[in-house]
């Protein structure tokens, strides 16, 4: 034990002696841990604890009844029965409703009618400023709503959709856990007289508090269903029901709610129904009954009572994201890279300390002691780094509180994380660092003492087991992924994770023999390049780790590019992506509660033109025709290929009459010419040989790749001369606005609150921009990793570079060497990441058992599209850029002799 203690002492002193490197590694560990802590804090702040959720729903009460009453009143029966059951309980009435309060601008708010001085309501709202409303005509609102409506305490406010008239804002209140909410608090009992019509009153709730409140509330609920509810049942419109409907008499939910008119309709239906195979008249009538009662758009229901208790809520636990899992996952993702970099740092450090290791051996240290020295140093750094990370994370949580609070919409108190939240990142950090130092520790312990004393690292012959083990690991990983894809087990996700790790790890292991192999083939390349290839082949611990670290990063853009290209290809079945500068106005929702929108009017077009004054507008006619094209929507079961091939897609948007104005706005000469020639045009598609069938008759059609909005806008244009062929078709107008730019957020919001049926293309990035952004982001991350890996191994490389300079190379050879080295390592990483990324996407896609079909084609769900035209340049150019950026950013070597060994 004393030997091990001595080894740890050496480790500790070594960490102190190499202060710069130690600080670097400590920070490297601390940053992901801090990240994990902050993620935990944000997740925790974004989700409520069961106690907080209970407070938001119950205030200070133990139970809450929601009362459904046609009159909007609380039945006295409930109060009386509660008091009889448990004389000690207190009952408080509360009304709240989340409704739209702004018409011109869409503003929604929670309207509260509660007495804040009542102990039962404590916790629903907190008093922020001014006074609590005490008289009718007074109101308190939340700071967010005050800002939104541009009103201050002392000012007056009027809500467009509420019949409250002008109210004086006497104070500010806020929900304690949602401080960005919009709230309106009226004086106690003010809501009812303000609303007037009892049917418009929000449903009342009863808060029940005091000893035995929950038990009493449950007993009252039982009594309600056994005897109370029927006291308040409405009188049936027809009693008894006609014999055809007698089977409905038993269910109060139907029989009591049917009107006379309903009964007449249902009797007619029952007499004339023609049930299909396997159907009965009763079923048809029953379905129609429900449609009449619940599909009419008017609320029809029996008086009811719904009970929630605090104990129930508390026992439900937290459904939101788990902060512990989130913090651990966030830290783990970054710590994978940290493990690689730390491993490289320790490998380089071990080489530098060879003489010291030799001296330890000469003085009796065993292999175990040497390993303990390296692992001990790793443990020290891991522990200090993790501790620092926790402190840093906590500091960020405290300092960033003003920024985080609006983001998570609630007040954060204290540090915002618990001990369990930080435990995960800390443990992951310790494990990552220990795993990272294990190989360097083993390598150091295996160096013969005499060799170590000479400062020489014995040449490592390529391990013969690396290739089969690497391939085996990748194969087992692939197998696990395959199993997980067909498995319905709850552990499928775990299998995917372990499998993917195995595949990536196995392929990463192959980087070592690849580097060794390339080094052997380097005899004929120029001197500096040869040095780079040989250096990478010889110092495989360092270079293979760098390659693996870069490879892991490169997997993301490779997979993302393929996934993006595949999605784009599949979406082509639905036509070209919608243009982000087209807005289609197809109806308005004036007085519409349920069902479709009304046809547009001139004032709708004017309203939209007011929002989009720059738009070029055309109003054109759409014929409500039954139009079909080749394929149908989406089929999710394999084996349905035949039905897809035989099916057709119905364009529910009818066909547009191609007026001169419409073709002008679409701006495509081909479309104009085709329409003038009397052809039917299919928009948003090319080279798909789309067949068009209108009312069962197939027409020749020509495709034009003119993108149009995929919802609301017909994609079939017919010449005006053809309209006469469809005299029975209903016609409705549609307006198309075209802009020279994408919609702004403000315009989106205004369109959303304009009560119009509007569709527009989203301002999505084009393929080239997406790929360039991915490439740029990848470059940045790879550069960071390359910089870190190069930084930790530069000391080792520098000694050799000084020798090269001493024998005649200019100092700039260091820049060339490191540039070539990083470029080469990135190239090898890319050579591994490319097939691996493609393979992983292919494996995951292959399990897709659906066929994506749209009006313009059918795509196998398991097919992948590889964007070679982007991938190949990306694979070639990225290493060049990395190498070049390294070359211009590192310093030349000083022209001095190599250091003497100490």
């Amino acid at each position, binding site marked *: 034990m004393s030997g091990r203690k001595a080894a740890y002492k050496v480790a500790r002193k070594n960490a102190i002696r190499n202060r710069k490197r130690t600080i670097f590694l400590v920070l490297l560990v601390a940053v992901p841990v801090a990240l994990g802590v902050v993620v935990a804090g944000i997740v925790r702040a974004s989700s409520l604890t069961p106690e907080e959720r209970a407070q938001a729903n119950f205030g200070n009460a133990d139970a809450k009844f929601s009362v459904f009453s046609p009159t909007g009143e609380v039945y006295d029966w409930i109060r009386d029965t509660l008091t009889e059951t448990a004389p000690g309980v207190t009952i408080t009435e509360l009304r709240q409703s989340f409704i739209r309060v702004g018409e011109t601008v869409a503003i929604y708010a929670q309207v509260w009618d509660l007495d804040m001085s009542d102990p039962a309501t404590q916790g629903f709202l907190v008093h922020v400023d001014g006074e609590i409303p005490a008289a009718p005509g007074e109101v308190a609102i939340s700071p967010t709503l005050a800002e939104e409506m541009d009103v201050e305490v002392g000012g007056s406010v009027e809500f467009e959709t509420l019949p409250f008239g002008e109210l004086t804002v006497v104070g500010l209140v806020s929900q304690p856990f949602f401080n960005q909410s919009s709230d309106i608090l009226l004086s106690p009992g003010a809501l009812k007289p303000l609303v007037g019509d009892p049917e418009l009153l929000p449903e009342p709730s009863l808060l029940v508090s005091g000893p035995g409140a929950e038990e009493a509330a449950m007993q009252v609920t039982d009594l309600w269903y056994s005897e109370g509810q029927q006291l308040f049942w409405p009188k049936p419109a027809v009693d008894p029901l006609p014999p055809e409907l007698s089977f409905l008499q038993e269910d109060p939910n139907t029989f009591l709610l049917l009107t006379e008119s309903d009964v007449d309709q249902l009797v007619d239906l029952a007499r004339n129904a023609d049930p299909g195979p396997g159907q009965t008249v009763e079923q048809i009538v029953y379905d129609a009954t429900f449609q009449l009662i619940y599909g009419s758009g008017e609320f029809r229901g029996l008086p009811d009572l719904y009970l929630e208790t605090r104990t129930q809520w508390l026992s439900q636990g937290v459904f939101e994201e788990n902060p512990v899992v989130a913090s651990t996952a966030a830290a783990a993702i970054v710590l994978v890279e940290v493990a690689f970099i730390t491993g490289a740092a320790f490998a380089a450090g071990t080489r530098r300390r060879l003489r010291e290791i030799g001296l330890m051996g000469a003085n009796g240290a065993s292999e175990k002691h040497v390993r303990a020295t390296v692992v001990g140093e790793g443990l020290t750094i891991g522990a200090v780094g993790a501790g620092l990370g926790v402190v840093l994370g906590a500091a960020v949580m405290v300092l960033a509180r003003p920024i985080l609070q609006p983001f998570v919409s609630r007040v954060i108190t204290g540090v915002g994380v618990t001990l369990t939240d930080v435990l995960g990142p800390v443990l992951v950090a310790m494990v990552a660092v220990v795993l990272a130092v294990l190989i360097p520790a083993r390598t150091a312990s295996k160096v013969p003492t005499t060799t170590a004393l000479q400062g020489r690292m014995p040449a490592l012959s390529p391990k013969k087991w690396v290739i089969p083990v690497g391939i085996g690991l990748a194969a087992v990983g692939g197998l696990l992924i395959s199993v997980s894809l067909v498995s319905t087990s709850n552990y499928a996700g775990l299998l995917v994770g372990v499998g993917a790790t195995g595949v990536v790890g196995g392929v990463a292991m192959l980087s070592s023999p690849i580097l060794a192999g390339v080094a052997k083939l380097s005899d004929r390349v120029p001197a500096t390049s040869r040095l780079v290839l040989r250096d990478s082949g010889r110092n495989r611990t360092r270079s293979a780790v760098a390659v693996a670290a870069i490879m892991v990063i490169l997997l993301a853009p490779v997979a993302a590019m393929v996934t993006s290209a595949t999605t784009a290809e599949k979406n082509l079945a639905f036509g070209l992506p919608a243009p982000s500068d087209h807005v289609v106005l197809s109806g308005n929702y004036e007085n519409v509660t349920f069902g479709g929108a009304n046809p547009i009017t001139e004032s709708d077009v004017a309203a939209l033109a007011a929002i989009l004054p720059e738009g070029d507008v055309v109003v054109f006619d759409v014929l409500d025709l039954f139009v079909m094209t080749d394929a149908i929507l989406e089929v999710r079961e394999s084996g349905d290929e035949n039905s897809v091939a035989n099916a057709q897609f119905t364009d529910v948007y009818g066909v547009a009459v191609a007026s001169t104005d419409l073709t002008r706005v679409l701006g495509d000469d081909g479309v104009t010419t085709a329409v003038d020639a009397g052809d039917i045009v299919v928009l948003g598609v090319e080279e798909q040989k789309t067949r068009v069938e209108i009312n069962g008759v197939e027409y020749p059609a020509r495709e034009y790749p003119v993108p149009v909005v995929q919802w609301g806008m017909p994609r079939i244009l017919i010449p005006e001369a053809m309209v006469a062929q469809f005299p029975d078709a209903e016609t409705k107008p549609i307006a198309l606005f075209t802009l020279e730019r994408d919609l702004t957020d403000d315009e989106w919001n205004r369109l959303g609150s304009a009560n119009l049926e509007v569709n527009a293309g989203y301002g999505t990035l084009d393929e080239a921009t997406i790929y360039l952004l991915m490439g740029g982001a990848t470059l940045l991350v790879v550069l960071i990793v390359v910089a870190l890996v190069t930084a930790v191994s530069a000391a080792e490389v520098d000694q050799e570079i000084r*020798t090269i300079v001493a024998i*005649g190379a200019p100092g700039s050879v260091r820049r060339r060497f490191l540039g070539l080295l990083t470029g080469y390592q990135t190239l090898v990483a890319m050579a591994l990441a490319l097939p691996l990324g493609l393979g992983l996407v292919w494996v995951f896609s292959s399990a897709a058992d659906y066929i994506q079909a749209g009006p313009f084609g059918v795509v196998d769900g398991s097919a992948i599209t590889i964007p070679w035209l982007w991938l190949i340049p990306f694979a070639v150019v990225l290493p060049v850029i990395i190498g070049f950026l390294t070359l211009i950013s590192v310093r030349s070597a000083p022209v001095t002799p190599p250091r003497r060994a100490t």
Partner: protein
Amino acid sequence: MTEPILSMRRLGKTHGSGAQRVDALVNVDLDLMPGELIAVTGRSGSGKTTLLNMAGALDEPTTGEVIVAGENLAAMSKNDLARIRRVAVGYVFQQFNLLPSLTAAENISLPLELDGMNPAEARKLAEKSLEEVDMAGMEDRYPDQLSGGEQQRVAIARGLVGPRSVLLADEPTGALDEATSESILKLLRSRCDAGAAALLVTHEPAYAAWADRVVRLRDGRVEGISERTKSPLTTADIS
């Protein structure tokens, strides 16, 4: 009269200024003739390595000038100084400093290749150079497959490969045992007898005795120069 291959005139090197000022070298005059082996001795801090670094175009003098193969280093750019190191002077270090990832032949041919020579041609010269240090047949061995003495022979071969004719050896026997050290000194002596010139920095009076002249440095100044009177010199001549 034969011109010196390396010439140092009133060479001075100062580090720091004011109270921190250290005169590493003061007014050193020294000529190294072709075929000559000069040993530079002195205590630690006497200026031996500084002198060698300036002779090898690795450091710039504060005063005076260095002329190598007729070229004055003072007026040269960094690239020209690098060229001098490639074609005129070769370094031998105490720790051999062979590049571990290159074979013996590749280590030797490296300066030639850096100078633009065809690798095949450079290889031939490297093989010849290896022969001259009695290492024929070991061209494809890596440094870690060679003994310390063999590595130093490769380093000497590298220092004198191709057009290089000046060898600057900084304690070349510091990491070797006595027998191996002696063989290295014999090699140095024989290479000088074959026409090369060498400046040998050493602590060991016995090893300095292999030199034609011994320059004793003290506090950056030449304290004395002993001429060769017989071969090898005795320790008495340089004590």
